[in-house]
């Protein structure tokens, strides 16, 4: 499956890796829900590290929509909330 890290590009990851990612993602989501800044930072950093380590960067000239999209690495919790509700973070 294809995972995009915003501001960084797309990666192709195996499905078993995706399962691990989902585990971390659940933590990330719960951190956002509970406004737990520390947990948020840790979960996001682990997610990104995992994708970078396990994924293969997709060549730039391949036009495919991603299955999963991750916030960029300096994202604040507030930015992620806005991303989820689509309050004008994505232009166009």
């Amino acid at each position: 499956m294809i995972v995009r890290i915003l501001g960084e590009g797309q990666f192709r990851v195996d499905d078993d890796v995706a399962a691990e990612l989902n585990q971390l993602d659940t933590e990330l989501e719960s951190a956002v829900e509970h406004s737990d800044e520390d947990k948020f930072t840790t979960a996001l950093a682990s997610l990104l590290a995992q994708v970078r380590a396990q994924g293969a960067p997709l060549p730039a000239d391949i036009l495919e929509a991603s299955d999963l999209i991750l916030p960029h690495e300096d994202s604040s919790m507030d930015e992620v909330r806005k991303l989820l509700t689509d309050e004008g973070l994505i232009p166009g």
Partner: protein
Amino acid sequence: MYMKGTAARMGVMKRVSLVFKAKANKALDKMEDPRETLDYSYQRQLELLTKVRRGVADVATSRKRVELQMNQLQQSANKLEDQARKALSMGREDLAREALARKSSAQSQLNDLQAQYAQLQAEEEKLTVASQRLQAKVDAFRTRKETIKATYTAAEAQTRINEAFSGISEEMGDVGMAIQRAEDKTAQMQARAGAIDELMASGALDDLGGHRDDIQSELDMISSGSDVESELARLKGELTASQRKQIEGSGANGGPQAAQAQQPQQAQQAQQGPYAPPAPQYTPPQQPQQAEQYQPTQAGLPVADLPGLGGEPQDGDG
């Protein structure tokens, strides 16, 4: 998937990707002829490419400004340390303290700027990479656009158009956000850079840019102090000597000197001979003045004729 069965908890990654997809679909729905979508989208892609390149240039400009300020601050810090050293060697600990306090202020601004500089540099790199990636995707889109137009009818093309469109749309959304972030950062930096410029202009950081440097002028004053004193003494000595001479001179020759001063002039006029008949008429009115003493003469005659300054030459003349 892991969160199977928990429909509400689909995770951040999935939700974000759905938001992107929804955005793309909404744009697609607006188009009547799917193939028009391709051209329209391609235009927007080219516009975005221009925008992201401009974004790179803006960040670079901002980075260069910070770099310039860093150099200025570094120079100030170096200069202030030199001044502190000099002040200490002159036994002026108070001045040295002041110079070091300013150096520390310049240094902390410098550290702050270094952090910002690194951020801007990272932003510039990210945006450059994003611009290259977008360029590659736009090229791929153009190729695919031509293929779709050439090979498929409008109805057949729909699926392929949707694929191409959602692929590029996601990239555009990503790049658009990256530009926005870069713009925000640049704006922040510019505000800070402006504040530092003001701080420098106020003299608090002792900018080298030309305004008065009070520590330096005080140091200069101290170091040139002894020279000034000796020069002053020398001048005073000269002045006293010449005054004494003058007083002696005026005491001895004052009156006669005034008369003598006029005499060469009259002689000159006389030498002009027969061709200068008015001269004799010219002379008489001056006679009483000359006969009168020193002061009226001094007030009325041109400087060159003032006797006070010319004691010695007249001595020679006489």
